[in-house]
């Protein structure tokens, strides 16, 4: 039974005698287990959650409105800041949408590198999820270990783009820069050791009776409810729905990679934990395939009016200088139309809906982010359970408030 999220608890009229035994508790917005500034109004009967109402919007910065005032290429850095734990997936989704409008062909090397980076970004996101989730449950050690591995990913990003988090590395038409010479070796070195590290996390958590008892059977979400509420990503797969856009509607050359899509039918927090751990191992396999089959060639499309020229060419060739000047000062016109591009990001399905009216600025950019929909399922997952389980469930759905509020 799905609960339609009704009126907020504080404002709801109290029925005669109905809430005599109930207490209303405010969780957040400044609470260490809320993963940002999320406020939950929880109505409890003793320790049992009767109702739960999420109140969001504390981080709303109007990014979608800002996009309408920028040139197409200026939107890329804004997309980083929406989901700051999975920045390259956001870049990728936006760029794919605009490239679909432009009907732009992306060279194979750029596609391969994009897949590699999207998977590294997914690992980054999953590592943070695992660390913070375990920390919420009380296993602090894992947090220190996962952040050690995340640090190496951030160093790789830094070597690539000069930025640790807000990389803006994937651009319309390809990539921002040629990757540094040691890039592929560093990635190889990193993923060579990662499976052992995942075993290490698994050793710390999978056999841990406290961790297991806190997660097993907690936060159950049935497959039908998950689909009805718009839940995507690992949470949907942990509820038994076999859906992954990387395999079902491949983008950016994912059809050339072999990987498994893990699912579970348990639908509880433990299933989400297991599914994400397997996903991390699958990501390692995808990165290995991308490294082994890395094609030669250019890393950006041959479209001088859209893609910024190389620095060297810009300083030696008149035409390149003119193109550079034009792109930076007046942008480039994009044919009128509307496209929706969905990708499978770390948290679930990300979608960008871009509407163009034929000018150099997007007429409308709408971002569909998975956590926004997942939050609607929170009441269904927590109702009738203990209050302490709310913390476990919020950790297991892996939300980022930046992408909810935008």
């Amino acid at each position, binding site marked *: 039974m799905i609960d339609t999220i009704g009126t907020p608890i504080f404002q709801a009229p109290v029925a005669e005698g109905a809430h005599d035994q109930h207490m209303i508790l405010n969780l957040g917005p400044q609470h260490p287990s809320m993963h940002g500034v999320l406020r939950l109004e929880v109505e409890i009967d003793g320790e049992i959650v009767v109702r739960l109402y999420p109140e969001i919007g504390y981080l709303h910065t109007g990014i979608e409105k800002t996009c309408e005032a920028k040139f197409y290429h200026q939107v890329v850095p804004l997309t980083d800041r929406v989901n700051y734990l999975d920045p390259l997936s956001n870049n990728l989704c936006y760029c794919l949408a605009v490239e679909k409008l432009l009907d732009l062909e992306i060279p194979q090397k750029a596609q391969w590198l994009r897949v590699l980076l999207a998977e590294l970004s997914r690992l980054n996101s999953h590592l943070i999820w695992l660390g913070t989730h375990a920390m919420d449950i009380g296993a602090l050690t894992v947090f220190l270990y996962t952040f050690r591995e995340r640090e190496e990913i951030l160093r790789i990003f830094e070597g690539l783009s000069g930025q640790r988090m807000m990389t803006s590395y994937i651009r319309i038409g390809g990539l921002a820069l040629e990757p540094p010479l040691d890039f592929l070796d560093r990635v190889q070195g990193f993923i060579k050791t990662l499976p052992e590290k995942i075993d290490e996390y698994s050793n710390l958590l999978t056999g841990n009776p406290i961790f297991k008892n806190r997660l097993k059977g907690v936060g159950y979400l049935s497959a039908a409810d998950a689909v009805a509420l718009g839940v995507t990503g690992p949470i949907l797969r942990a509820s038994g729905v076999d859906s992954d856009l990387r395999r079902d509607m491949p983008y950016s050359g994912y059809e050339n990679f072999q990987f498994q899509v893990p699912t579970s039918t348990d639908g509880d927090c433990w299933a989400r934990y297991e599914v994400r751990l397997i996903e991390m191992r699958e990501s390692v396999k995808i990165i290995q395939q991308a490294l082994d089959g890395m094609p030669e060639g250019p890393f950006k499309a041959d479209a001088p009016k859209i893609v910024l020229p190389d620095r060297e060419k810009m300083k030696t060739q008149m035409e390149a200088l003119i193109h550079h000047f034009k792109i930076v000062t007046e942008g480039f016109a994009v044919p009128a139309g509307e496209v929706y591009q969905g990708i499978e990001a770390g948290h679930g399905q990300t979608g960008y809906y871009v*509407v163009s009216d034929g000018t150099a600025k997007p007429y409308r950019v709408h971002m*569909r982010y998975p956590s926004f929909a997942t939050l609607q399922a929170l009441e269904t997952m927590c109702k009738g359970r203990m209050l302490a389980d709310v913390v476990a469930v919020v950790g297991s759905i892996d939300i980022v408030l930046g992408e909810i509020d935008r």
Partner: protein
Amino acid sequence: MAEAKTFIGKAAVLEGLPEHPAVKAILAWKPEALMDAKFDRGELTLTIAREEIRAAAATVQAAGYNFFEDVTAVDWFPSSPRFQLSYHILSHAFKERIRLRVMLDGEAPAVDSITPIWPGANFYEREVFDLFGILFDGHPNLRRILMPDDWQGHPLRKDYPVEGYR
């Protein structure tokens, strides 16, 4: 999927994609509710009459488009009709996405909510209400979601300045 082809207009889509499950389902249900259609860049857009959107959503849901992804609006100010609602609906079985579109007038825009059909539309319709001021009839809790409750105006409308009112 006929990726490279483009069909603009209802007649062209009906001729070009007669076997498409969503098109078939809509035609079998109520052909006059389909106002316009477009197949562009591999994406099918079906424009539905304003009064019929909830029934159309139920129809495509029954036809296999089981997963509601997204609803958002576009403000075409100052042209008329002013607002465009775009519903994105995915089918896990067909591995394909369709877009339902509804056009609304600028004066007191309102449309039936599809939350009774997909509970997941709840937050999305609240967001559209908050940022565009479009009312959804039959929504269980149509309140502002991102902006403060006492906010004046609807920020994503085109006549609302980017830097806000100062």
